[in-house]
């Protein structure tokens, strides 16, 4: 680490030097699969993730279904127990923290769920839903809980008068706002947002994306934003991690991922998105086949079965997440060439790549 820091040229691009708020190393989740009493092996849903989230930073986790992004989000807020690896939040290891030890941390670490219909108790009023985190943590805000709840409702663009209404009286977008108000109740530092806008209509989706952006800026929140929609992620996240079959295949700043993708999968994913700006079929990269089952992922590079660049080495050696300069890292044996940086060795290596390089 020191060596890397020392190699940084003086006055290197001002990367926020702050300690990461969330530090994830080797995070793994395997689900056993059984038929009857016989074990049929493991679903390797998440297999060794390394990433950091700094205070106030937004990290997007993108990938197709089954890539493990939701499992990752659920492990981060400890709704699922990791199989291996570590999660450090604000300097404390919370990987296996017990309920009691977690409770104070929960205040800083909240989640917004995908389905605005299933994540709100239909028998509780909105006031009660939003007040619940305060009550559970025995917090008595100045002016009383009701006042705080009404402030929160106003903050997310709902009418504070609707305090006594029930979830069914609200539309999908409004319900998602209720979920956001609940997540904000404890003034968290990090919010894990699991597909927060994918269940909403486009016009409503834009409203909620804008709301989240405003909140993120005003309250200096860090986000782990899980989504399959790369266009939404581009509008919300500063950094993006692309996942495939339980692994991060590429991570980097927004501009790197969207303008200079180096992993073939990232390229294919970007080219597959139908864009309104291009009429008629665009020159997309056609990926053949489906994502393989995580029950029996391909050897070596997991993307090789659908990759047009795959060679023999891809089947035998698993590519490590290797830094390519400028904070971008790619796990590929044949990454897309980048413009050679004039400074020589890549600067701004972030610690997670150090871990990625380890065998």
């Amino acid at each position, binding site marked *: 680490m020191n060596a890397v820091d020392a190699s940084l040229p003086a006055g290197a691009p001002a990367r926020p030097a702050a300690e990461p708020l969330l530090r994830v190393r080797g995070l793994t989740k395997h689900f056993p699969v059984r038929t009857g009493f016989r074990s049929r092996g493991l679903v390797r849903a998440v297999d060794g993730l390394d990433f950091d989230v700094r205070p106030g930073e937004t990290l997007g986790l993108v990938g*197709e279904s089954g890539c493990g992004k939701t499992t990752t989000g659920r492990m981060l807020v400890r709704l699922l127990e990791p199989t291996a690896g570590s999660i450090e939040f604000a300097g404390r290891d919370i990987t296996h923290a017990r309920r009691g030890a977690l409770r104070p941390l929960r205040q800083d670490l909240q989640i917004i769920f995908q389905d605005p219909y299933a994540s709100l108790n239909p028998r509780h009023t909105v006031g009660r839903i939003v007040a619940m985190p305060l009550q559970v943590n025995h917090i008595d805000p100045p002016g009383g809980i009701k006042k705080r709840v009404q402030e929160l409702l106003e903050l997310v663009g709902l009418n504070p008068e609707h305090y006594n209404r029930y979830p069914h009286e609200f539309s999908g977008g409004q319900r998602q706002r209720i979920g956001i108000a609940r997540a904000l109740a404890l003034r968290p530092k990090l919010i894990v947002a699991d597909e927060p806008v994918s269940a909403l*209509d486009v016009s409503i989706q*834009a409203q909620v994306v804008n709301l989240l952006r405003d909140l993120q800026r005003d309250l200096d929140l860090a986000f782990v934003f899980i989504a399959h929609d*790369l266009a939404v992620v581009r509008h919300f996240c500063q950094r993006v991690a692309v996942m495939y079959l339980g692994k991060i295949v590429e991570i980097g700043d927004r501009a790197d991922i*969207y303008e200079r993708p180096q992993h073939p999968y990232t390229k294919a994913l970007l080219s597959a998105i139908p864009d*309104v700006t291009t009429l008629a079929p665009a020159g997309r990269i056609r990926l053949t086949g489906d994502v393989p089952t995580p029950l029996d992922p391909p050897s070596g590079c997991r993307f090789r079965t659908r990759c047009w660049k795959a060679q023999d080495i891809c089947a035998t050696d698993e590519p490590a997440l290797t830094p390519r300069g400028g904070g971008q890292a790619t796990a590929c044996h044949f990454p897309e060439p980048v413009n050679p940086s004039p400074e020589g060795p890549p600067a701004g290596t972030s610690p997670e790549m150090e871990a990625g390089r380890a065998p």
Partner: protein
Amino acid sequence: MTDTAVPAPRRETGPYLRVEELRVSFDTADGVVRAVDGVSFTVAQGRTLGIVGESGSGKSVTSLAIMGLHDPRRTRISGRILLGGRDLVGLSEEGMRRLRGRDLSMIFQDPLSALHPYYPVGRQIAEAYRVHSPGAGRREARARAVDMLGRVGIPQPGRRFDQYPHEFSGGMRQRAMIAMALVNDPDLVIADEPTTALDVTVQAQILDLLADLQSEFHSAIILITHDLGVVAQVADDVLVMYGGRAVERGSVAQVLRRPQHPYTWGLLSSVPSLHGDADADLLPIPGNPPSLINLPPGCAFHPRCRYAGRNGTRSSTEVPELRQVVERGHLVACHLPEAERQRIHQTEIAGQGVAR
């Protein structure tokens, strides 16, 4: 020197499907839901019509009305649905059943709930074939189903024939659905959000497949979706629906490149894009889609429209008609005077968001 081997145009000329003033309403305990309120459009063979709208805009109800899948005891349908010259409105269930699957068929959004979990996939496709080909034996139907599975790009179709829906992945199931919809070579295919449940890389495969099959079978396709990107890629014509009514209709270039209705402007500027300034705020449409029981008077969009007040109270009292604007075939239902609409589009809209 004319080549006489060119196949004669099928049946008569003119659009294969012509929907005129279609109205669909349901009686519910809360009141009458006017799900579709006077929608007209045409689709010719070999062409794709994209119907765009948010949930509750009436796009799925329209497609179910064409398929005759509404419960006649609860639904009131008026207007005309002319399929190759026959009016489907008021057709008996028996008559409809003879057409469904053979002349028109549907690809549903969720293949897992549209395929029967108890029967092998191939058998379901073969059954769809035998219903409309009474002379076909078991073996012939099987051969036909295997052939279709192969054509939609399912590897080892002979083996896949005997597998159950749960043994297929999401993309494979959607391919099987498409095979089933096309097994009788229908002239009209309605695809209701065919790729919404799929991942983008698989969506790209399915959209390519639909385009390939269309050029092969020359069918008319109605593609219902909320995704403007999908429409931009595959549709020839676009119909934008709001609150059960058509608000804009035209070719894909007219509607997506030179949109004239404020709702279409709003849709286009609220879609996040892969190009342009990522830090710019999206421009959402304020408010929520209307309730179909209590549609706002006048133009249904006026409570959410930025330009509604520009001509007195007309927007809130009078329902705008779908009228042709500058270009031929481009229809817009808006009270804004044409010159003003053009000016707003030029000065305020064209530079924003993806409408660029």
